[in-house]
């Protein structure tokens, strides 16, 4: 291993290459002339040309389609529900499902509207143009919902994925419960766009789209690297940020290659952006403690790693009296935002609602009612009878407000090859959410029961997330705010304590709404990118 690190100079350093980083780099290339270096600890995984075969092996055997997409000694511990060890070019969004709802306007004003949680330092309207930009850059196919529930400044860039034969019936069924539903917005090409194919309903969006119809960040990186405006350093782990003790400015990032060489690397940058997700961003800040910052960088408030946010769900399979045919497009669904705007007078419960076709209860059985093994034509007869029914799946993510002690800490019991402690995460509800938890889930179960009865069906099975395992679509750890004593970064993502350090996307979020978060992570990151670009422009 070299004793003197190889040093690289960059105007803008982005740590991480996931979807937020990709969106930001694309924005910065178009809005600044500054050089951009992106550092990724992993390597590029399965290229598009190999994804058809990778999908086949995934479907046939359950093999991961993403080869070598993680580092064996770089992982999180604790309640890691919703976390993936993926560390690769493109990050977790290489295997996301592409579901791309926006948060609702209420999410940004929870304290003002409902007296719970905290307001964000900006509004939905402030974020709308960045939502739009994210939707344009990744390519989101969507249907405008009722404007009051689903406001947007401009139309979706692509028409929605079709309401298929099954979903059309389920839409009518939901309407019997006075629930308005529409096609779930998805980062999948409903038409050929940007050199990528139209969706072919392969139904393996998660974890791998074989055609490239679903957006993955490698598409953006391939294009950006070709412009030569972006340098993508793979297999390079940033292990510390170094701050000037007097000015607080970050003067360099240091780390090592994660290949066999383990070579030491130092990157000197004028602007440093952490876009490494809700785990690795606060983890790096905590690791970077020094004599001037004994609790870690950007941590005057003591909130680095705190207020980890997410949500939970209640899920149900319902027997419904209609001729559904499982398999038409299993991963596509209906969505409703009707329950994301509850009356202020009611007890606090906000949730989304998704509706899918399902094959639960329609599968072949192992044994008949007498316990006899089913085989041959007897099995097929029994299966045909079971398959003639119909099952709907409904699920609601509900809002969970984060506690200050919902946190990530350094865990000395687990270290990587360089001796760095790994992160341990532990989610905790704010007292208001903890008090409402049982009642909220009961309300959702009652809703599903009402939906089943209104449609002339019944409940096959209901379940809820295990609340002691973590939360879904996790975010937070470097929350935004206007007060340096109650937040880590300001409303644009700039660290209160370090003028050239920015934290982007998921970790900066104040709360995690009650729907899939990726589009919002990207939009928040783009808002940060716009501030960085604006600052660069004013400096030149």
């Amino acid at each position, binding site marked *: 291993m070299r004793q003197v690190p190889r040093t690289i100079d960059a105007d803008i350093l982005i740590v991480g290459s996931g979807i937020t980083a990709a969106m930001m780099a694309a924005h910065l290339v178009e809005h600044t002339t500054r050089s951009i270096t992106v550092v990724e600890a992993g390597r590029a995984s399965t290229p598009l040309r190999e994804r058809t075969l990778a999908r086949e092996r995934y479907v046939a055997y359950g093999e991961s389609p993403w080869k070598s997409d993680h580092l064996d000694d770089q992982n999180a511990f604790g309640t890691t529900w919703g976390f993936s060890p993926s560390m690769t070019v493109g990050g977790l969004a290489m295997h996301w499902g592409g579901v791309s709802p926006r948060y609702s306007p209420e999410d940004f004003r929870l304290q003002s509207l409902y007296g719970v949680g905290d307001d964000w330092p900006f509004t939905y309207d402030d974020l709308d143009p960045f939502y739009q930009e994210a939707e344009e850059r990744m390519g989101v196919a969507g249907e405008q919902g009722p404007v009051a529930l689903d406001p947007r400044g401009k139309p979706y860039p692509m028409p929605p994925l079709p309401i298929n034969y099954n979903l059309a019936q389920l839409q009518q069924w939901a309407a019997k419960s006075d629930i308005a539903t529409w096609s779930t917005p998805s980062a999948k090409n409903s038409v050929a766009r940007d050199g990528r194919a139209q969706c072919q309903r392969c139904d393996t969006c998660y974890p791998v789209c074989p055609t490239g119809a679903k957006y993955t960040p490698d598409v953006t990186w391939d294009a950006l690297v070709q412009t030569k405006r972006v340098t993508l350093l793979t297999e390079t782990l940033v292990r510390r940020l170094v701050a000037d003790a007097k000015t607080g400015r970050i003067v360099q990032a240091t780390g090592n290659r994660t290949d066999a060489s383990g070579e030491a690397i130092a990157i000197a940058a004028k602007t440093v952006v952490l876009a490494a997700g809700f785990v690795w961003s606060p983890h790096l800040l905590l690791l970077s403690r020094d004599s001037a910052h004994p609790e870690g960088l950007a941590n005057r408030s003591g909130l680095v790693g705190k207020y980890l946010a997410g949500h939970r769900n209640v899920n149900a399979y319902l027997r419904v009296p209609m001729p559904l045919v499982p398999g038409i497009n299993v991963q596509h669904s209906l969505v409703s935002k009707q329950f994301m705007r509850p009356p202020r007078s009611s007890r606090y419960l906000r949730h989304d609602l998704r509706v899918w076709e399902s094959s639960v209860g329609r599968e072949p059985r192992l044994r008949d009612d007498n316990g006899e093994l089913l085989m041959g034509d007897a099995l097929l007869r029994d299966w045909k009878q079971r398959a003639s029914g119909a099952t709907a799946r409904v699920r609601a993510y509900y809002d969970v407000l984060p506690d200050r002690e919902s946190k990530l800490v350094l865990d000395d019991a687990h270290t990587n090859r360089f001796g760095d402690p790994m992160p341990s995460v532990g989610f905790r509800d704010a007292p208001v959410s903890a008090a409402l938890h049982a009642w909220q889930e009961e309300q959702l179960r009652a809703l599903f029961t009402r939906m089943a009865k209104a449609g002339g069906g019944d409940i*096959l099975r209901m379940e809820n997330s295990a609340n002691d395992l973590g939360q879904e679509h996790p975010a937070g750890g470097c929350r935004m705010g206007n007060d340096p004593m109650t937040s880590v970064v300001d409303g644009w993502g700039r660290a209160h304590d370090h003028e050239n350090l920015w934290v982007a996307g998921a970790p900066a979020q104040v709360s995690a709404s009650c729907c899939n978060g990726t589009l919002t992570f990207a939009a928040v990151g783009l808002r940060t990118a716009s501030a960085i670009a604006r600052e660069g422009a004013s400096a030149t």
Partner: protein
Amino acid sequence: MSRTTPSGANRREFLISATVLVAAAACTPGTDATIVTDSPRTQPLRDADFNPVQLSALADTVLPASLGTAGQRAAVTAFVAWCDGYEPVAEEMHGYGYADVRYLPADPVPAWRAQLDALDRLSQRVHHAPFASRSLAERQALVAQATRSVRGERLPSPLAANHVAIALLSHWASTPRAWDLALGVQVAPMTCRTLDGATKKPLPIATMPDPGART
């Protein structure tokens, strides 16, 4: 009301089963069904080396006769190719609900091969004749006897099958073609299809040419 656990995490189960995957995923009752497409277009990693006569007789025993000889033969060929292509202890897809990296199970084929041979030995003991030579009813009774300890509500995924008879049946039942037969319409789940056809009611299976028809 069930509660999800790390090994049966509902979101992950859904995502896996919505993709209608198989393999080592636990076959928890109540999750979406498993479907495997026909064997991957990949080089075989080994030769499962089943006794072809015994395997053919087993197929004739457990697969629907309505598939016809050609259909059953095709199912056997696909099953053997699937076995030949399996890579033991390959990395599983890591997803939601856990952070550790997990691996697929050991090669099930040696046990399945031994079970196939054991079916023949059982036939010799009971009927003093090879398995393949017995009537359908006798063969089905032998299979039922050999699998009497196999429990579960739903036909397991092929990789979760702990008997070769269940594995062969399960592999066939998890193909898009089998699902279409059960549903009676042309859906071809888990195959890549244009969006255009998604809004229409699927056509009845009767209008499809049946590659498994007896010739």
